[in-house]
Each structure stands twice: as structure tokens, then as C-alpha cells.
């Protein structure tokens, strides 16, 4: 049993060393609070470890899975803090009338040139909606209320933004699954 425990610890250390910066980066980008980001990063590793059996390689890489857990936990934490009116601040929507996002701002937010270019290609209102949801943790209903537009419009903007990002970032292999029909059954 000691050997098993040592094996577990070594494997976890490997996982941590490889992905801790990525995990912490997602947590801090959303929470903007180092202390909360550390709590979330810790919880993300605990969750990934205790739920390791639920990882499915067909659905994406280990990193993608781990960051999905992290973002979910970070947004949960952000919303919990809002409900408790506890320090967390909501980001303000950018002005879609601004013709361009400053390059320096984009470079600070994204290290990948490919992602920066893909985001620049979004329409200003799509980008504004993505920012509120992705960095601000707003729900569809909250974005709709904040921007005074119907929920369906928010949904359409997010759908269009995702399709545009997919076209720019994912190599074309098969038709986008959103466009396919369900098998009857």
C-alpha cells in the first residue's frame, strides 16, 4: 500500500508540475485574486485526481479537461462571491463602438497570436459578449439584462462567436457537430 501511495504522489507531482501554471493562469484570469485563484487551482487538482476515472481521452486532452474543471470552479467561485457581495467585482462590458481593441490589451490577455487574430475577427458585439461570459462569468440572463437585449440575441452571438473561433482555430476535419442531426433512437 505504501508503494501505491508513493506512486500516486509521484504521478500527482508530475501532473502538477506539468499543468500548474496553465491551471493557475485560468483561475487568476477569471478571479483576479491570487488567494482565491490558489484555492481554485488546489480544488481543480483535487477534483481531477478524485475524478480521474471520468477523464475520457476521446473528448480532449488532459490539459483541456483540467482547464475545463478549473474554469468551472473559478466561475462558480466568482458567482458565489457576488452572491455574498464579498470583494469580487464584475467586469464592465467593453464598448462595441470602439473600432479596434488595442493590440497591447490583446497581447496582455492572450499569448497566442492565432487566438488574438481569431478574436479580432469577431464582430465587436460578439467580442463584447464573449468577454462578459468568458472573463466576467456572466450568465446568458445576466448578459441580456446588462446589455438590455433579448436572451436569444446573447445566445446567437455566443453561437456565432464559437463558430468563428472554431473555423479559425480548429483544423477542418468533419462538419461542426452543432450542425449535425441526432440519430433517432
Amino acid at each position, binding site marked *: 500500500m505504501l508503494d*501505491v*501511495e508513493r*506512486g*500516486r504522489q509521484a*504521478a*500527482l*507531482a*508530475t*501532473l502538477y*508540475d506539468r499543468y*500548474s*501554471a*496553465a*491551471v493557475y*493562469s485560468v483561475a487568476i*484570469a477569471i478571479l483576479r485574486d491570487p488567494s482565491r*485563484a*490558489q484555492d481554485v487551482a*488546489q*480544488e481543480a*487538482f*483535487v477534483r481531477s485526481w478524485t*475524478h*480521474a*476515472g*471520468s*477523464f475520457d481521452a*476521446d*473528448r*480532449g486532452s*488532459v*490539459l*483541456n479537461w483540467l*482547464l*475545463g*474543471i478549473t*474554469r*468551472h*470552479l473559478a466561475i*462558480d*467561485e466568482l458567482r458565489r462571491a457576488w452572491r455574498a457581495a464579498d470583494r469580487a467585482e464584475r467586469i464592465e462590458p467593453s464598448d462595441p463602438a470602439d473600432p479596434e481593441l488595442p493590440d497591447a490589451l490583446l497581447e*496582455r490577455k*492572450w*499569448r497566442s497570436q492565432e*487566438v488574438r487574430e481569431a478574436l479580432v475577427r469577431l464582430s465587436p458585439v460578439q467580442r463584447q459578449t464573449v468577454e462578459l*461570459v468568458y472573463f466576467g*462569468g456572466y*450568465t*446568458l440572463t445576466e*448578459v441580456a439584462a446588462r446589455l438590455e437585449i433579448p436572451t436569444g440575441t*446573447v*445566445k446567437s452571438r455566443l*453561437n456565432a462567436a*464559437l463558430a468563428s*473561433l472554431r473555423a479559425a482555430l*480548429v483544423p477542418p*476535419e468533419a462538419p461542426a457537430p*452543432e450542425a449535425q442531426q*441526432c*440519430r433517432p433512437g
Partner: protein
Amino acid sequence: MSSRMSCAQVTEHVVAYAWEALDPEERIAVQGHCSECPDCDARLAAARRVVGLLDEALPRVEPPTELRARVLQAVASSAPVDPGAIGSERFTASREADPRVGPHGQRGWRSTPVFRWLLGPSIPPLAAAAVVLVVPLLTWAFLVRPYYEARLSAVQAELARLEEQLAADERIEWTIRSPTTRTIALSPATGSGQAALMFDPERRWGMLIAQHLEPMPVDWAYHVWLVGGGQRLHVGSFTPDDQATGYLLLPDPLPIADPQRIEITRGPTAHPDAGELEFTASF
């Protein structure tokens, strides 16, 4: 929103789910549907992958060094969860919905109703002391220990699989991105199709990719061989997928220190030696 959604409703919500923009009730309804519908589940996974690319592209911020010890300690005191017990939550697990997390964030057996009851203020001190001593011992002897012993082998296997996956991911990523990687086209000896080897001579990692492969009997496969130093060794086999494409990551380390040639044969899965030469190339 009804707790049960149709495929059409889920399709409408799947992107918002991937962006984490649904209200909790809608989120649970989408999860419930996807756990039973492979098509919607595939849509969800594809949408999440795109959002995940943004996550991966965020600027890297190194966490404080003390976090490492905190994480290792926290994990050491946590227990693996049976995948079957968490249903469709394959990518996320809601803190609020997790019955294993106690009201103060405690995990595992400390958050069970029994333990919370033991800590309750209404238990007389003596009875509480007896229960605190006896119940954990009995629970350990008859429930916890057998459970963990039964789970240990499964956890070990899962760990080995994850480690293997991690190592393979790293090798693939390195091989694709390394500036020293060379792409070697394999010449077809018979039949049709294309094959290429991406090989990084520095790390000696290689990945073979073949496409437009011909269909073959179900019990056949493509077999990959390395030749050099007077040896010809079988290093793996692959079968084409439904797009007539196959790939194989060469073993690390290579079984032949200085391979001169790579060959792909096609033949029975059980008898790699009996295959016919399909592709070949020199290193």
C-alpha cells in the same frame, strides 16, 4: 426550463453550456440529456474543446511555490470517486452539487452525514466519545478498508493509463512542434495510400501518419518495423480509422539505437511476420 430537454433544446443550449453561461437549472438539464445522448454529448465536447483553446492561450502565470505542497497534501487526504457515481459530470463537478464536500469544505468521510452527526452539539459527551471511538473503527474495518483495497488496483490502472496518455501527449506535441523534426515520406511498395514519419533526431521521438489506406479484413492490421544494426524489429501496429487514416507513436526509447529504415507491412494482426511490405523509407 423543464428538467428534461429534447435534442433540439440541448442543441440550442450546448454552446452556452460550453461558455459556462447557463443558469444552474439549465446546466443540470443539459448534463442529464448528454449523459444519455451520445450525439448531443459529442456536440458538447466539441464546443468545450474550442473554449478550451482559449483557456490554453491565456498568458501563463506561475503559481506561488508553496501551492505545490498544499495541493499534494490536499490530494493525499482525498479519496478517488467512482466514475459511475458522478454521472455525466465528466468535465466539471459543481462544488455545490458535490455531496462529498462538507459545509466547511471538508472532503471524504469527514463530510458524511455520520461524521456531521457525531460532531453535532446534541450528542451527550460520553455517548459521543464511545461512538467516536467505536464507529470509526468498525467503519474502517468493515467498510472503508475493503472498499479502498478493492479500489486501489483500479486506481493504479487508471494512473498508469493517465501517465501513459500524458507521456504520449507530450511526445506528440514535441514531435509536431520541434524545429528539429524532419518529415520523411515513405514510398509505397504496393497498393495505394500515403505515409510519412515525423521524426525528431535529437530526442529520437517519432510519429508515423498514414492516410488514404485501403480497407482490409477486420483481423488485419498495418505493422511497423524498424531495421538497423542487423535487426528488424516490430515496433507496433495500427488499424485505419473510418477516415482510412492511421497513426502510430514510435516507442520511447527506440528498440534499435540507430535505425536505418522504417517499413510498414500489412497482414494478419496475430502474425505480423506474415504481412506484405506496403511502405518503406530510409532514415
